[in-house]
């Protein structure tokens, strides 16, 4: 009945100890491996026929989808990052979709997971930006056509805006998944509570049951949409690394 019990991290077995801290293989890691396994199965195990079957179509559509997203937001040079962006997209999408199935665990409902992904993108942008552009990367923080008098103020604001990217990038995915799953659990528990109240309750329980069905459909949309938003923001940030201050 506890709506946040579904987010519990339970160790399955212990791998080792680092500095007295237990490093355990948890249910979260298990679901990460499951997402990777499902993705590999989809991409490798579905054949390469000229006329694609159903699963092969899904694999091809997901490739085209991510490739188009990168081309439209970051241009041709952005395709260098295709493996990176595609891995992030597939991990988030598959784990979100798995998480909708009852009794499963959603890895992106923990902020540490989404923050790790967001910082991965952030440091990729930072390191690649400096590697590719050198000090011209700082142009990102200096808008053109600004009077010198207010330049320090504007640059400070731009730097804070840049540093806040991984925060909003990770919080968005995390908060959407967390809120959606808690809502589902709360409405589902209304069904059992009303069902225990006798004949009137059983008729009353129809309402929250219908809501749960509708919310599950909404969650399916949110799961995909948030993975897409995460991917497109990754592309926008990578675009900044490739062409700063155009």
């Amino acid at each position: 009945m506890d709506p946040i019990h579904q987010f519990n991290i339970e160790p399955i077995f212990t791998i080792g100890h680092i500095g007295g801290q237990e490093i355990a293989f948890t249910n979260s890691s298990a679901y990460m491996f499951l997402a990777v396994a499902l993705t590999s199965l989809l991409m490798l195990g579905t054949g390469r026929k000229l006329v694609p079957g159903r699963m092969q179509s899904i694999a091809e559509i997901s490739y085209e989808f991510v490739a188009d997203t990168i081309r439209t937001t970051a241009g041709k040079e952005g395709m260098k990052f295709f493996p990176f962006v595609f891995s992030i997209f597939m991990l988030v999408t598959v784990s979100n979709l798995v998480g909708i199935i009852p009794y499963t665990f959603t890895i992106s409902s923990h902020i540490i997971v989404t923050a790790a992904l967001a910082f991965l993108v952030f440091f990729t942008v930072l390191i690649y930006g400096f590697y590719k552009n050198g000090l011209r990367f700082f142009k990102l923080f200096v808008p053109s056509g600004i009077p010198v008098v207010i330049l320090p103020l504007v640059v400070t604001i731009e730097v804070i805006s840049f540093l806040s990217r991984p925060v909003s990038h990770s919080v968005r995915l995390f908060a959407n998944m967390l809120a959606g799953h808690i809502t589902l659990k709360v409405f589902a528990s209304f069904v059992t509570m009303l069902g225990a109240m006798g004949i009137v309750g059983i008729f009353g329980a129809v309402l929250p049951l219908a809501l749960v069905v509708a919310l599950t459909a909404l969650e399916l949309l949110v799961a995909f949409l948030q993975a897409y938003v995460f991917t497109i923001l990754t592309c926008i940030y990578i675009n900044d690394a490739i062409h700063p201050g155009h």
Partner: protein
Amino acid sequence: MARGFRLSSELIAGVAVGALIGWGVDRLLSTSPWGLIVFFLLGFAAGVINVMRSAGVIPEQKDR
């Protein structure tokens, strides 16, 4: 709902990062409370810029 989440998280991220920087500056330079005040307000401005960018009111950085 997704759009609302997106815009509000942009604003909160700006303010939170600004406040964090201000707190860090205060800790390092013992200028309390001025660093927090100044960077909180700058963070607010950065949050508003984030919101306006993601809402499409002002263009993204690459178009300037």
